[in-house]
C-alpha cells in the first residue's frame, strides 16, 4: 500500500474519530464536577478499614483483583522478555570493557545509590499512608541499583546483581500475593478479602489489615521485575554479540 494511500486512510480515520470524540467531549459532565458516587463510596470504605491512602485501599483491598491482574501482566512481561531476548545459538557473550567515569559523576552515583534505595523502601513501606505504594517504590529501588551501571560500568553492576536470584524473587513475590489471597479464601471469606488481620489504628504503619502485606509483595515483585527487565536489555546492548566468536 503506497504511503499516500496510507496517509489518506489515516486522515479519514483520524478525522472521523476526532469528530466523534469532540461530540462526546461536549456531552461529558463539566470538568471538575461534584458527581463522583463511586469515589465517595471508596473513600468511606477505605476509612472504615483504617487505610489512610484511599488509592492504596482501592488498589490492594477494594479492587485487589485488578492489581492481581496488573502484577501478572508485569510477571508475564518479565518471562516474555526473558524468552525474547535470550542468547540464541548463533550468538556469544563478550565481556564488557571497564568504562572510565569522571570523578564527580562516580562519586555522585555511589553517594545517591543508597539514598535512592532507602527512598524506594520508604515509599513502599508508607504505601498505605502517604502518596506512593508498592509499584512506585519498587521502580525507584530497582532504578537506584542501576546507578552502579551509570556511575561505574556494567561489570560492577553484574557482580552485585545475580539475575537468577531476582527472577526467583519475582516468582516468589507473585506467589506470595496469590497465597495471601488464598489464605483469605481459606479463612472463610472471599479470595483477596481483607478480613484476616485487624485493621490497626488509623495512619500507622500496620494499619489496613492485609493492605501492607499485598503492598510489600507488589513492591518486591516490581523491584525484581524491573531489575530482570533491565538486565535482559543490558545484556543485549552490552554483552551479546553476533556470530560465534570466542
Amino acid at each position, binding site marked *: 500500500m503506497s504511503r499516500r494511500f496510507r496517509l489518506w486512510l489515516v486522515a479519514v480515520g483520524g478525522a472521523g474519530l476526532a469528530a466523534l470524540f469532540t461530540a462526546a467531549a461536549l456531552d461529558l459532565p463539566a470538568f471538575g464536577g461534584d458527581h463522583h458516587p463511586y469515589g465517595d463510596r471508596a473513600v468511606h470504605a477505605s476509612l472504615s478499614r483504617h487505610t489512610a491512602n484511599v488509592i492504596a485501599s482501592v488498589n490492594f483491598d477494594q479492587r485487589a483483583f485488578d492489581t492481581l491482574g496488573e502484577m501478572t501482566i508485569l510477571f508475564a512481561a518479565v518471562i516474555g522478555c526473558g524468552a525474547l531476548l535470550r542468547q540464541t545459538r548463533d550468538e556469544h557473550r563478550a565481556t*564488557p*570493557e*571497564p*568504562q*572510565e*567515569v*569522571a570523578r*564527580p*559523576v562516580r562519586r*555522585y*552515583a555511589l553517594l*545517591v545509590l543508597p*539514598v*535512592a534505595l532507602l*527512598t524506594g523502601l520508604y*515509599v513502599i513501606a508508607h504505601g498505605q499512608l*502517604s*502518596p*506512593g505504594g508498592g509499584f*512506585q517504590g519498587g521502580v*525507584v529501588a530497582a*532504578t*537506584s541499583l542501576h*546507578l552502579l*551501571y*551509570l*556511575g561505574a*560500568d*556494567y561489570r560492577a553492576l553484574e557482580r552485585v546483581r545475580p539475575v537468577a536470584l531476582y527472577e526467583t524473587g519475582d516468582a516468589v513475590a507473585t506467589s506470595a500475593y496469590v497465597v495471601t489471597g488464598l489464605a483469605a479464601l481459606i479463612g472463610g471469606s472471599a479470595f483477596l478479602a481483607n478480613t484476616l488481620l485487624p485493621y490497626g489504628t488509623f495512619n500507622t504503619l500496620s494499619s489496613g489489615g492485609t493492605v501492607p502485606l499485598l503492598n510489600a509483595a507488589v513492591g518486591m515483585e516490581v523491584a525484581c521485575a524491573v531489575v530482570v527487565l533491565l538486565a535482559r536489555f543490558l545484556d543485549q*546492548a*552490552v554483552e551479546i554479540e553476533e556470530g560465534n566468536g570466542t
Partner: protein
Amino acid sequence: MNGWILAAAVILAGGVGATVWGVATGPLRRRVVAQNLCTAFACPALLLLSQGYDRPSYVDLALVLALLGPVGTLVFARLLADELADDPPSAWGLTYAAAAVGALVVPAVCVAAGPSRAMAKLLFVGVLLIGGNVVASRALSGGFPEARHG
C-alpha cells in the same frame, strides 16, 4: 489568589515551557541540556505546588524527582557519549540559572514551612536537586571520556 500556585504556574509556563521547546528543536547538544534543565525547573514547581495546596505529603514527589531526574540525565550522558563527544554541551550559564531558581524557591518554602522535620526534608530535597543538576551537566559535558561501548 494563592501566591504559591501563581509562582508555580510562572515557573511551569516559563521554565518548563522553555525546556519543552528546547528539547523539541535544535541540535542534540542543546536538547540534552534542555532535558537536564527540565528537572531543574520542575522540582521547584512541585515544591511550590505542595506549599500552595497546603499538602506536605506532596514533597515526596519533589524528593523522587530530585533523585531520579539527574539519573535520567546520566542515562542520556552515558549512552549518548559517542554523539556528544564531538560537540560537548557546555551550557554552564543555563545550569547555574536553573540552580539559582532552585536556590530561591527552597528557602522560601522552608520559611513558610517553619522549623520542623518538614524543613529538614525540604533542605534535603534542595541539596539533592542542585547537586544532581550540577553533576548531571558535568556528566553531559564529558563525564564519560572514552566513548567505547560498555
